[in-house]
């Protein structure tokens, strides 16, 4: 499911970045790599702030929907 649907403050794992050209590369470089832990910090009409590694990244809705996540096992 897309990260926009995640529960706030619950760590999840990144599954896949749906391709959106150069933005995919950009996200990957920020640490959005499959299997990485990510936590949703705040949500605002689909715009999100999430925690990845030790940083907080703000992402707008269209972009956030490309980040697919899986529950942590």
């Amino acid at each position, binding site marked *: 499911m897309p990260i926009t649907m995640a529960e706030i*403050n619950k760590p999840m794992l990144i599954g896949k970045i749906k391709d*959106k050209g*150069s*933005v*995919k*590369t*950009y*996200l*990957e*470089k*920020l*640490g959005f*790599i*499959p299997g*990485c832990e990510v936590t949703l*910090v*705040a*949500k*605002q*009409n689909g*715009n999100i*702030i999430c*925690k*990845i*590694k*030790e*940083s*907080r*990244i*703000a*992402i*707008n*809705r*269209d*972009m956030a*929907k490309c980040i697919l996540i899986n529950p942590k096992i």
Partner: protein
Amino acid sequence: MKIRIALTGNPNSGKTTLFNALTGSAQYVGNWPGVTVEKKEGRYRAQKEVTIVDLPGVYSLSPYTLEEVISRDYILEEKPDAIINIVDVTNLERNLYLTTQLLETGIPVVIALNMMDIFNKSGDKISIKALSQRLGCPVLPISALKNDGLDPLMKTALELANQKKKFEAVHKFHPTVETALDKVEKILYHNDNANKDLRWYSIKVFERDDKTLKKLNLPRDIVKDIENIIHNAENLLEDDSESIITGERYELIEDICSAVLQKKQTGLSVSDKIDRVVTNKWLGLPIFIFVMWFMYFISVSTIGTIITDWVNEEFFEVIVTDAATSFLESAGAAPWLLSLLVDGIIGGVGAVLGFVPQIMLLFFFISILEDCGYMARVAFIMDRVFRRFGLSGKSFIPMLIGTGCSVPAIMASRTIEQDRDRKMTIMLTPFIPCSAKIPIFTLMAATFFPRNSLVAPSMYFLGIAMVILAGVLLKRSALFKGDPAPFVMELPPYHLPRPKGVLIHMWEKGKSFIIKAGTVILAGVIIIWFLQSFDWSFQMVETDQSILANIGHAISPLFAPLGFGSWEASVSIFTGFLAKETVVATFGVLFGIAEATEETTGLYPHIAALFTPVAAYAFMAFNLLAAPCFAAIGATKREMGTWKWTFIAIGFQTGLAYLVALVIYQIGSAIFYGTNITGAVIVSALIVGAIVYLLFKAYMENKKAVAQN
């Protein structure tokens, strides 16, 4: 021997703080990513023959943003003797990504492990020795802010630079990737460009990096061979080559981090808790509006006014003017000299300097907001609003800088990746009132709306509203059609504002305001004084027969429909192009009193006679929106690149300013003073109707687009 050392690192990792500490300069530092957009050079304090280059913050060396291109080109083309890689130890994993790339360039790297003080407080542990071993380069702990560990860092960097040895990276990737890279290396070995930094080029070619491929200009059959190798690896690892390398790097880093880092488990940080509130869906925007109002209320309406009044009434009006007058009279100076010094220079420049306390206070608050990390959140909050109208929240960062001065703001638009969004931001940024426009607003607000604390900050909101409105209008034109670029931005952690940092910021910004008063504005008032004292045959005359009055009368009909058709007001608009403070300074010179600031009783009746309150508001709005000062027009030209775009920008700004002022004056007069409905009023009403329609349509279309998504 000349030595060059480059500072690189992630955005907001403290490069500029370190640069300032090493070179003793005072470059701008801010708590959000992307403050440094251009490389800056300085000399090392202890050894002047050593040049230190501060590069823009980047997450990687791939050419995705302009900053990345600048940093990458410098490192690869100009080959500094050594690189100091600043790594924020509190966010080690992400920061090491760039490090792994830097290590491959062949240039000696020293890692400066920054923010050690914060890290130590958190209770986490790191083995610096192990980290240095794993990366194969020296690692030194520092705190750039507290000046800790800088000497050993520079000593190591200089040693490495003097050795002039080529650096070999020690880290390796997955065997499948390494096999592929080996094969690419063997092919590239015969290329003269690539065989100098074989490891770097083979990785870049493997990633299909456009710029590298273009530079190497490989023959077609070789490209085909390499493409086969890449394809093979991609099939084996089931991803595209660039993502493979990115993944490999993070794999490697994770491995390193788990070996060298000992982390305490932490829950929700304070930053997260604050973010919950300030970026809240419902509270975010009202909090922002309140913060802005409060800032203006303190610095412009209440405390600022008290201090400014004292400076004006006690200092300039009484002390300086009296002293200068009596001195000149006793020295037997000619009346024209007395007039030049007292009316012209003290009147004009003093009018501007009187605002220094207010400006300083305003900068004080803005500096606090910047330093603590709130400004980056504002971009996020505004993205939601802006996107509704087809703009990106990223455009808001240059606009925030624009509260100080439009020139650095226009330059800051470089952080916007998309050309279309960037051009539009350059055009719209000057709508945000810069510090130079504040004297105009406070003068007008205090003369006509003395009891209303909302009039001055309302210019802020009018500016933002116009950015949105103009954004919608521009998006309709063929020049700017298209979706705004996605918004991805790192939010820095909150920290308490540091008094030293805030005061330095405040002083740096305030200083340029004062310097401007002593240079551009001084020259301006001398010219204005001359023009208003002489007629065309260079005889000293009364003001209303002067050259200036002549010019003013010639252009004033243009502004009559806006409510400020007096020649004085018309002239001040033109002198405003020199620098916006000159608008107030012009009134100061024109009315021949030594002081022209808002509380001066001498100026009150003069200004009050020129405008009605509605016309005064229209005048404020016109000055807010019309073409900026020469310096900002110059910056627009530099960033736009062509005169054509520069003229489009200026024309658009001035045209919009004219329309807005027209609408405010005509409709405002009809409502408040019951003036007759004339053609101008009807035209204005039609403009408003058209704008509302366009806004509504854009809003609905974006809503539909969002719903469809």
